[in-house]
């Protein structure tokens, strides 16, 4: 039997497979298709201090081997999550990580303070890289000072495992990663979406109401693997890899590049069962290669 247990700081995962925020709802949306207990964990939708309506429709357009989205952090706010959603999902035998977003440092801190007391929430993923919100979001994530500032404040407000989600829309992602590590982040997850755009040439209008949006899907995988590889060599905290993981092979690719765990995002839209297939592939792959513990392959490149 292959060991698939990995640890992200103090957070123990039964396997390296997580779901990316904003692609898996609150897990419930997929319970008809898979046994949520088989996942290492799932990262719930980006949560903000107040209810957000998000951006106007249209929010999505398909692109070659990928898609652009401009959802804009639509969510009902942290209080609704704690009162209505958390009680429904808290008993799953899998880690629940809350993705936290904000427009100001105070927002981030306020959300973290509300989440910290929840028994089942052992980790948060702080999103400093959302390309689809005007203030905050990516603004914090594209310079080391801003990233450090958010991390420092959140670190004080949330004692459990702190993951910071990094933006790929930067010249040197390792600089940002080192900055958040220095401020006490337990882990970094990358990549968030690449800022992109598509135009309807017949209507001569952008496809998205926001003109630009976040590119995800298989198309971005080579960029994501490269950044995970660079960051894993630059920091001493565990790296969580994501960006275009469509199957088990892709997941292993990220781990070889240096990821301790991986997040499956857009692929959930195409095959709602892909996450458990990836867990199965990891077992099969390790057995085929005579690997007893999947931790052995992390960063082998």
């Amino acid at each position: 039997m292959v060991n698939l247990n990995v640890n992200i700081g103090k957070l123990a995962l039964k396997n390296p497979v997580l779901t990316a925020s904003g692609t898996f709802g609150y897990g419930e949306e997929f319970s008809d298709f898979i046994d949520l207990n088989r996942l290492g964990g799932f990262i719930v939708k980006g949560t903000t201090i107040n209810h957000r309506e998000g951006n106007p429709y249209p929010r999505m357009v398909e692109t070659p081997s990928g898609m652009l989205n401009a959802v804009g952090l639509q969510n009902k706010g942290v209080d609704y999550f704690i009162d209505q959603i958390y009680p429904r999902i808290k008993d799953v035998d899998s880690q629940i990580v809350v993705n936290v977003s904000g427009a100001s440092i105070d927002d981030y801190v306020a959300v973290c303070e509300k989440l910290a007391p929840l028994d089942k929430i052992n980790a948060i993923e702080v999103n400093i890289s959302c390309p689809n919100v005007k203030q905050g979001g990516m603004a914090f994530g594209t310079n080391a000072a801003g990233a450090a500032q958010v991390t420092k404040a959140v670190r004080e407000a949330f004692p459990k495992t702190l993951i910071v989600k990094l933006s790929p829309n930067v010249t040197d992602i390792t600089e940002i990663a080192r900055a958040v590590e220095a401020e006490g982040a337990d882990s970094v997850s990358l990549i968030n979406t690449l800022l992109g755009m598509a135009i309807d040439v017949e209507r001569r209008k952008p496809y998205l109401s926001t003109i630009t949006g976040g590119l995800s899907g298989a198309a971005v995988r080579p960029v994501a693997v490269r950044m995970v590889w660079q960051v894993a060599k630059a920091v001493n905290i565990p790296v969580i890899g994501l960006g275009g993981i469509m199957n088990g092979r892709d997941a292993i690719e990220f781990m070889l590049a240096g990821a301790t765990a991986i997040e499956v995002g857009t692929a959930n839209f195409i095959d709602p069962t892909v996450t458990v297939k990836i867990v199965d592939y990891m077992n099969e792959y390790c057995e085929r290669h005579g690997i007893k513990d999947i931790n052995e392959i992390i960063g082998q490149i």
Partner: protein
Amino acid sequence: MKKHIIDFVINENRHIHAIYSLLILSPKSGEKLPKMKPGQFVQIAIDGSKTTFLRRPISINFVDYANNQLWLLVRKAGDGTSRLIDMKAGDTLNIILPLGNGFTIPNNKEAKLLLAGGGVGIAPMLYLGQVLKENGFAPQFLIGARSASDLLELEQLKSIGEVHISTEDGSMGEKGLVTTNSVLKNDVDLIYCCGPAPMMKAVAKVAKEINADCEVSLENMMACGVGACLCCVENTVKGNVCVCTEGPVFNINQLTW
């Protein structure tokens, strides 16, 4: 309703029109079709199209439980749907179903119901009409198209209820649009409508004028179809809601049209 992911085999692909195809499918495993409601839709995985990354949402045209067959009426729009239209009997499709809320079946069996479809918008009306008929209603159809040759599944509709036709060129039924059809002068309690957005908005307007209730089926661009991606939202009186879960059917008084 529980959602299923099922591999279907294509029993028949009827090329009923230059840009429309009727796919008749059965579960490959032979398993019984899950219960589906009129107005619900499915998400089809498209293989073998370089430019198609996501599934394609297609509304349920008809469910033939007796023969365990699902009917999907596909309109050639882009590479993904072209791929579907090119498929042959024996080919398989991976499909997630059933998705969405579906149309409302009234309690009052006396309700005068009009099922209005424009173009491929007639797709959900065939199954809706069948279910309404089975429930003791006397549904009437109002269908519009550019020309007589663009009217789809006319015979099947006629076998269920009276069919009122509007064609832009007058080649069949009344000349004009569905909204100008004289049937709308009769008294109608509830109009079910599916078609291009301008047509649905026009029908909604008429419905308000004649004090008829009205449900429309929206076709917003979607990725997941299960309420996870929040891409297909429609702005309603409750704010942005997912068309794939709270829709695709909406009562017009829920919309901000």
